[in-house]
């Protein structure tokens, strides 16, 4: 595999990364490189200049405080998968990404900035209502995950803006979260991914948040499922009935390929939402 020629710049701090980016506006930012380098090797990407932020310490942290957890964008999938501070759905999804080599290099920030529709983390972050903090020459911004993912490989990030931190509520009392996916048998990316977080109090769902991804151009919330479930008893029958409501939230943009047609993926949204809800409900107990 032989990529086209490129210049390589390594940032040593967040501020330095922004300076380099300002000086090289057409450069591509790389953290773990697990999406960018294969694309370059296949000559599908020819960025000219790479700014490597993979060693920037400012982006490498994972800390929990007061029921809230903040994850630096440079945190690797392996670190997230091993963390008991992050919601179960997130550690579970991070542990399903690629293989150990990928998880040891790939980063959360790189993953979401790439916005691959078949990626696992965007779905989880939407379900968890995570906040994405960014830095740029003009300051910082806070973007809700539901607004961050705009389309196929497209985010709300502006030119010259970097993901700094992803933060969210931890799974609190009586609350559980889970991620379930139908993997592409070749790439193991999600053909259908479903994430759920539920709160069960006195045997009744009091909060439910669900998102699906993999089958649509971007991860999306499935509010119909939560609406169908909140106030209901936490039973398998209720979960199964509510899972089917995900169909109300899917538009006509469900995608298919040689591994799974759009119709099948649409059907499987119900199946995998049910699995995620079932597991999240067990964890809430």
């Amino acid at each position, binding site marked *: *595999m032989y990529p086209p020629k490129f210049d390589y710049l390594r940032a040593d701090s967040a501020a330095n990364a922004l300076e380099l980016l300002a000086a090289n506006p057409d450069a591509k930012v790389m953290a773990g490189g697990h999406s960018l380098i294969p694309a370059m*090797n296949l000559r599908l990407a020819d960025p000219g200049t790479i700014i490597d932020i993979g060693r920037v310490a400012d982006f490498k942290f994972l800390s929990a405080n007061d029921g809230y957890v903040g994850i630096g964008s440079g945190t690797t999938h392996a670190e997230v998968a091993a963390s008991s501070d992050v919601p179960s759905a997130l550690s579970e999804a991070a542990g399903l990404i690629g293989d150990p080599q990928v998880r040891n290099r790939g980063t959360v920030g790189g993953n979401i900035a790439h916005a691959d529709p078949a990626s696992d983390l965007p779905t989880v972050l939407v379900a968890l209502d995570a906040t994405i903090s960014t830095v740029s020459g003009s300051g910082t911004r806070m973007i809700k995950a539901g607004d961050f993912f705009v389309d196929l490989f497209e985010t709300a990030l502006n030119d010259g803006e970097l993901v700094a931190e992803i933060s969210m509520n931890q799974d609190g009392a009586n609350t559980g979260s889970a991620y379930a996916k*139908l993997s592409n*048998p070749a790439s193991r990316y999600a053909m259908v991914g479903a994430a759920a977080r539920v709160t069960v109090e006195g045997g009744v769902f009091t909060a439910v948040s669900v998102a699906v991804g993999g089958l649509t151009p971007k991860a999306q919330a499935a509010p119909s499922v939560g609406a169908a479930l909140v106030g209901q008893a936490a039973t398998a029958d209720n979960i199964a009935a509510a899972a089917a409501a995900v169909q109300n939230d899917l538009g006509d943009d469900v995608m298919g390929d040689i591994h*799974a047609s759009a119709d099948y993926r649409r059907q499987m949204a119900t199946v*995998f939402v*049910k699995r995620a809800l079932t597991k999240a409900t067990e964890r809430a107990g």
Partner: protein
Amino acid sequence: MGNYVGKSMKRVEDPRFIQGQGRYVANLKIYGMTHAAIKRSPYPHAKINSIDTAAAEALDGVIAVFTGKDLADSGVNPIPCGFTPPDIKLPPHHALAIDRVRHVGDGVAVVIAESAYIAYDALDLIEVDYEPLPAVVDAKAAAQPGAPQVHDEVPNNVSFTWAIGDEAAVNAALAACDHVVELDLINQRLIPNAMEPRAAAAQWDSAMEQMTVWTSSQNPHTIRLLLSAFTLGIPEHKLRVISPDVGGGFGSKIFHYAEEVIVPWAARKIGRPVKWVATRSESHMTDAHGRDHVTHCKLGMSQDGIFQALHIENYANMGAYLSLFAPMIPTALYHTLMAGLYKTPVIYGVTYGTMTNTTPVDAYRGAGRPEASYVLERLIDIASRDLNMDPIEMRRKNFIQPDEFPYQTPVALIYDSGNYDAVFDTAVEMADYSAMRAEQAAARAAGKLVGVGVSGCIEASGAGPSAAVVSLGAAIGLYESGAIRVHPTGKVTVLTGAHSHGQGHETSLAQIVGDELGIPISDIEVIHGDTERLPYGVGTYASRSMAVGGGALVMSAQKIRDKITRIAAHQLEAAVEDMVYDRTTGTVHVKGAPDKAKAFGEIAFAVTLANNLPAGMEPALEETSYFDPPNFTFPNSAHIAKVEVDKDSGEVTLLDYVAVDDVGNIINPLLVEGQIVGGVAQGVGQALWEHGAYDAEGQLLSGTFMDYAMPRADGFPQIRVGRTVTPSPSNPLGVKGAGEMGTIAGTVTVVNAVMDALAPLGVRHLDMPLTAEKIKAAIAAANGGSN
């Protein structure tokens, strides 16, 4: 019992591999070496109007750019096909396409540059004016009237029609049968994916007019022969071919590839060494693919399940060109195995080999035999369900019995030995088959889709008797060479024409020679893969290295022992017939007088002194032998798998897998178990995941690992391996091939298991790979379209 044979020994080659010290073609560095990259067609079928290489040639660091016309103008000949049944239509196969490209990945030009990076940059600067033509992809569709023509030389795209058996007799027998199972099935295309991509390098020595070619190949002597006698015309004694460490082949590295022609030609042309290493994407586009059959088959039987007749009509996709052994795979290695383990009295089969706008198809692990077992064992599986008979009982009713060997099948082969009931007894016991069935019944009662699949497969391995394979159409004999060179200090070099590319021959062949001569294997070095160091050899494929290559070494060891015995007798002043060669200690002594002895090393040195040898004896302890076996060997198997299908999603989980194989005597059980387990994984890969997929227009859809689904460890339970041993009479070691049984049986066993899981829904057959979507659709259809 010797010191080594039959013992599980770790591979002596492993330390260098696991420490990154393997020496592959890609590791090769030669002073002045340049790098090649191939411009490949993005079109499945197109006329080449023009190729403009000027911009590429002008790029800094580019040494030269050559096209197919340049090669042809300098006298390079097309790549030959090495298996030619009568009336075959042979289309030319140029190393670089000249006026027409015929599959995605067909080479049109080569760039030679100072670095691989520059070479790939230059590829983007070559402008090819293509005029797209309609393409055909499907093996059967290619033979239909009006299909796009791939080659002018092959009317209707049918390169050959190959048949065996009496069709009228089979049809009459089928008409008289109580029950006939009829099935259409597709054995889908696979992409082999050896871990090491193909690679070739070459150096021309103008002073000596000598060419050295390094290639990631399973058979360097065959490649030398083809380069010399066919493609490049370099005299064979001026041509050295080296296959150093090779990281897997699975058959795909048997064949003579275009790059093996282009690279040495270019090295001579520019006067500098050239190296080419395939990218993984190139491997997907240009390594010969496997399987790709469209088959209609019928098995007739009596009401009590005794097989009466079998009829096979098969279309085999050859791809865009006839690869080296391509026509042999769906013919002589396919129809001849249709008897399986059974006494079916009449069998007819016909294969149409068709040309399509796809990557050429050739031998891939099992090569014809997995396809044959798939047909037969699927038919039997369905038959047992139709007749409400246990699938193992139905098979047992039809087995060839142990006292019936050698057994002449109705499809040419004579089976050497076997005891199929014993293999099944072992498998049934290991799997606890009746408990497995009881668990299945309980799971079904609980609403689950659980299936148990069985298969009994046969293989003709250890190819083979040269006269037989040449009479069938092969252009090479299939004997093997084995030389033993004893050095003055008693150390031994073993030279084998077989080639190790993952099999572990440096260990297993040393075990054989160690026991034959009674010397420690640490005193033995096994050399393979270099035409200049070895006697002429045939190479490794068709599970032949132990049976044929091992046989040649046994012959040479016998000659060495005889000579040592004669020298010892002479020096001890005893009669030769009174001498005893102790193969556990490597000493020769006078019968009844163990202290009147000579050690192996003493004789080795005495030969070097040459002052006290029997009269007329030549002073050398070096022997070369060639073994041409009297028959193939016929390993056989009983495999049992248990699966569960998720009703909601259609996903398959493999719960248990028992593989019992009779591969005759075993040299190294550890290596055999590795072959079986790896083979099963590869076989299951075809059943559940792998598919070399093209769209209808001829674009390769599974061009990278993002879309080509390889089997992975997390898809498997612990594969439980057992064995029975029925020695083969076809070679001195009594061994049978072990390299392919796992693959042959793995595919159909798991498909049978999934079909067993779906049987309560009335599902009869689904084509591979058994994707979740395909299964879910079948479940939904069985439930009247609802989920």
